[in-house]
């Protein structure tokens, strides 16, 4: 159970996206990236989004995390319209509801594992004495509790990505948005990351949206979607 931000028990989807569109203007015209995307994600569900490079997978992920604004459509998170939130409320949404894992294992290089995991808690204004337990708990979920005081820049690639997963989990979000989290890992480490995700999702509170090229990663998920020419199809 999420102690930091208690998750409301709901029967419906956590994420409900309807007719979501995104386009960019380059001065000569409009370039559509997403066209009328519909998506529902339920609690504890693992969803993979596949598609060729430039198909808009990452853009969809960024819109779901409110890192990018949508051009049109509807996005409800736990029944609440989140597309029109203010900048401050968007930041609050990211703190409370989502955790990100990126392809490049973006850890803070000059910090320890503990300090990397502490940042989300700092921004969420968690009391300092509560932080160590939360951090250790998050690291235990990726089997890296023994690396607590290790400098981030001395970790292996697989360990770095697992620390990134733990950092996404430390605020106990309802959705993890992962952008090709195994993209730069070898098969063994990639498998370990997916096993970690499976264990986390099995606990039922958190959902996962994962953008990937890797069919083996997609096979680990409950549902797989394909994004082609800006249109999302369920495979």
């Amino acid at each position, binding site marked *: 159970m999420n102690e930091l931000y208690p998750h409301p028990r709901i029967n419906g989807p956590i994420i409900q996206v309807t007719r979501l569109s995104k386009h960019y203007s380059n001065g000569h015209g409009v370039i559509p990236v997403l066209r009328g995307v519909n998506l529902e994600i339920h609690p504890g569900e693992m969803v993979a989004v596949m598609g060729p490079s430039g198909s808009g997978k990452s853009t969809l992920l*960024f819109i779901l*995390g409110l*890192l*990018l604004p949508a051009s049109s459509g509807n996005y409800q998170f736990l029944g609440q319209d989140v597309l029109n939130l203010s*900048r*401050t409320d968007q*930041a*609050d*949404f*990211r*703190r*409370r509801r989502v955790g*990100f894992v*990126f392809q490049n294992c*973006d850890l*803070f290089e*000059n*910090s320890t594992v503990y*300090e990397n995991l502490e*940042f*989300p808690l*700092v*921004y*969420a*204004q968690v009391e*300092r004495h509560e932080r160590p337990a939360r951090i250790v708990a998050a690291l235990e979920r990726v089997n890296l509790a023994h690396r607590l005081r290790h400098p981030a820049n001395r970790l292996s690639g697989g360990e770095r990505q697992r620390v990134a997963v733990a*950092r996404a989990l430390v*605020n106990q979000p309802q959705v993890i948005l992962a952008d090709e989290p195994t993209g730069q890992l070898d098969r063994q480490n990639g498998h370990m990351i997916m096993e970690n995700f499976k264990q986390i999702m099995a606990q039922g509170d958190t959902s996962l949206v994962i953008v990937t090229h890797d069919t083996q990663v997609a096979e680990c998920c409950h549902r797989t979607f394909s994004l082609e020419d800006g249109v999302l199809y369920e495979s």
Partner: protein
Amino acid sequence: MRFSDLIRVSIRQLVRHRRRYWGVMLAIALGTAGFITIITMGRDLKQNFNRDLELLGRATLVKVYFERLPAYFHQNFTSATVQALRKMQGVRDASLAVCTYMAQSSNNGVAHNFSLFGVDNAFWDVCGFTTQDGRLTSLADNDLRQRVVVLGPELAQTLFGRKDVVGKKLEIQQDIYTVVGVLKNVGLGDLSHFAFMPFTTAQDRILRISPANRIYLRTLTWDDVDKVAPLIPQVIQSVQYAPGLKVEVAWDQVKRVKAVAFWVQLFIYSSIVATLILGGVGIWTVMMAAVRTRTREIGLKKAMGAEDQAIMAQFLAEAVCLSFTASLAGSFVGLLTVEVTSHLISSHPPQGLFLFCVILGLVVAVGLGVAAGLYPSLQASRMEVVSAIRYE
């Protein structure tokens, strides 16, 4: 983001990237140390500078005498007048003197005429005279009316044919005097041809000696001259009847010394300001570079839910911590410099002034940090998350 977290994270960043910040910290520390030293030691240094400048110009020497008219020939100053002048604010000391321009001596059967001053023991400090050989007349010489004499170097040469004449006997108006010292020939001018003996001895033994009608007065600094000089007649007349009083000040020299001091001060203060500005520009440059090199970090933190204000506050806090720490180090260096300088020139600058300078230095440093860090911090806070995350 809590304030304690903000400061902790900022200090951690500074410590971990300390090599990047050395130059900037050094500039601010030196600026602060210079500022504290100059302000705290300013007056004491000026007084010492003033003493040394006397050898060149005597700008702070004020001569008080009676007009040389028959009606005032017998006017003289009292010791109460000298005491009153010594108590004036901005006056370092005052000395009473008697004089004759017709002293006679006979040395080896050859007669010489020369000028002679009867001076109290304060005279030497007031006029800034020292000896090249022997000693000056003392308070004991005055009290005991000793028959001792200090010669100007040219007079020693004239009378004895050489200048190492300490211990020699000299006959002046049929009394035998012992030469106890020869003055250094720096800044003496015509007085190089004069002889000097204790004030009381001159009054007792020298025929046709003048009344005590001249006072030499030294101000603390050249800034005090124009405050003290106009008040002198008023102070004297409050003690004694003093018609025909004249106050002589070397105004041209005061003006020149002030001009020199002004340019020196301007140069010093400009150097300090330039150092601090360089420090500020340094902070600005370093923080701009930090914002650029930490672009992905900024994007990542925003993705974690950091608000724009939190990002801005973090970079601003780093800039302020940087300048504050440097200023703290500068204050310590300033304290050491003040201690060493105080020891060297034997002065005791007021503690309150030092503390005021330290506090002012820290406040200026914080202001500098805010001013220099504001724009880079704004840049950081306004970054779009996705562009920042994708920044290579």
